[in-house]
């Protein structure tokens, strides 16, 4: 089985400041891997290192045994990347762009054209093939980029925030595309839409402040939080300490209580009676993410008068 593994990858653009710090993990190179994290977490840095665009400051990474830093030419034979903020060249048509990319990879013009058409059909953008890229809608532009790499022979695709900025419907369509892609590719994508990772990914990595905070399937990540329910309080009010469960506070001043279903119901009833705005649901990746990225708050921060 093919494996992607990072062994203590660190990257520092400026002395003393780390964009990535000792990132270490190993995953099967199949299906979809989603790297999630907030802006500045280090996602782009990691994807650029793995796709041979950037050298790490220290550490090693291999994909299917091929060393990312030392055997880059071998690796480049089997990968393709859509960088964050990549755009299909504006003055070309979608077809011209896809065909040129494939020709750059060494396909003949006619083979490139066949592949471009086939990929466009799969993504249902064949009607746009002869339109200029700059005249396409945002969603179609992204699909052109995805079609471009998927039309190639690369087995491993790196997609840096492929759906950022898309409207919900376009995003949904692109998700469908990615689900078909993963049948015969290994897709390594980054996103800050947790729902995206939840819907698509076979494995999820949580990156925060340059460190890998958690890695696993959605179920495995769920187990990192000891309770199955979450109550989110949307305003900065004094919070009662839950009888069971834990409470975490977000940077925005919102509170998150992870707890049992029973306790969640009890807290909800109390909050309703106090007319506090809140939401309650089974644990989502959002909740897990907030839980993992932010530590539970200290005892003394609970509101005294509210307890018991």
């Amino acid at each position, binding site marked *: 089985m093919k494996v992607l593994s990072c062994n203590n990858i660190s990257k520092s653009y400026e002395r003393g400041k780390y964009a990535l710090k000792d990132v270490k993990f190993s995953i099967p190179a199949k299906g979809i891997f989603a790297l999630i994290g907030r802006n500045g977490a280090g996602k782009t840095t990691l994807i*650029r290192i793995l796709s041979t*665009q950037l050298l790490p400051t220290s550490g090693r990474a291999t994909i299917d045994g091929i060393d990312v830093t030392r055997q880059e030419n071998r690796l*480049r034979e089997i*990968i393709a990347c859509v960088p964050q903020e*990549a755009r299909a060249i*504006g003055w070309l048509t979608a077809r011209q762009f896809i065909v040129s990319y494939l020709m750059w990879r060494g*396909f003949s013009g006619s083979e490139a054209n066949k592949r471009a058409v086939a990929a466009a059909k799969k993504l249902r953008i064949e009607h746009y093939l002869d339109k200029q890229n700059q005249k396409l809608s945002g969603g179609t532009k992204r699909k052109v980029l995805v079609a471009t790499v998927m039309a190639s*022979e690369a087995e491993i695709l790196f997609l840096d925030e492929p759906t950022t900025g898309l409207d919900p419907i376009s995003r949904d369509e692109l998700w469908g595309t990615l689900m078909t892609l993963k049948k015969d590719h290994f897709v390594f994508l980054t996103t800050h839409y947790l729902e995206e990772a939840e819907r698509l990914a076979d494995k999820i990595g949580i990156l925060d402040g340059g460190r890998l905070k958690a890695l696993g399937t959605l179920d495995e990540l769920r187990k990192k939080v000891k309770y199955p329910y979450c109550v989110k309080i949307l305003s900065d009010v004094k919070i009662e300490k839950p009888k069971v469960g834990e409470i975490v506070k977000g940077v925005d001043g919102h509170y998150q209580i992870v707890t049992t279903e029973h306790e969640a119901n009890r807290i909800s009833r109390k909050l309703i009676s106090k007319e506090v705005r809140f939401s309650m649901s089974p644990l989502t990746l959002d909740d897990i993410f907030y839980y993992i990225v932010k530590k539970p708050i200290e005892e003394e921060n609970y509101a005294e008068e509210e307890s018991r």
Partner: protein
Amino acid sequence: MLKRNRGSQLLASILVNAIYAMINYPIVLISTLLAPFSLLIVITFVSHGTLLPVAIAGALIMTMIAAGTSMQQDLSHLKNDFKLQDMIISSPTSAVTYLVGMALSEIVYSIPALVVLVILGAIYISTTAIGYLAIAAVLGIMFVFAVSLGFLLSTLTSDVVQSWAFAGIVSTILSALPPVYYPITYIPLPYQYLAYLSPATYAAEIIQNIIGLTAFSGTTILADWIVIIAVATAVSYIAIKKARWREN
């Protein structure tokens, strides 16, 4: 593993950066055709026609230099605004393949102008077969120098402001200083030294001597050849070795 077609890899750059641009926007053809003629016309009229052959040779040299400047601008644009360079890095296309393909695309882009200039040259520049060959060689060397420099600089830029700054400095040194449209002796003395900062000056001396406009000694001309060959070799070597391809 896929058998990669080297010709396709080069052709891709030519398609993107020249042919598709011309097909999609035919007005491009007119603008590239006109580019070298502004100074050619001015010099010819001001000199009452006497400098026409020099001005044609000068326009040819300038077309080579301009290929390098546009290479820098085009590649910076593709790299910074479309992230194309990163897409290319993460693919089997090597930096050298990309560089050579893009350099060829600049030639293709200049074909309209080159055709007219070569026809004018054939009519108004009279020299021996060796002379024509030497002129072609000088132009080729200037081209290698200019596109290598353009490629190198493009990989160092991270946005359009930097790209314009590089282009401004380079085109002043390469196009404004050197006396390509007139003999260097027209420049008052202390400033002549300034002109020698530009490789184009040495190229112009060789060509002007071939045309018979100037009569520099054999050693001067030999030195000129050595300078342009050395500069072109050094810059293309640096471009291949030091261009910022994979970052660190």
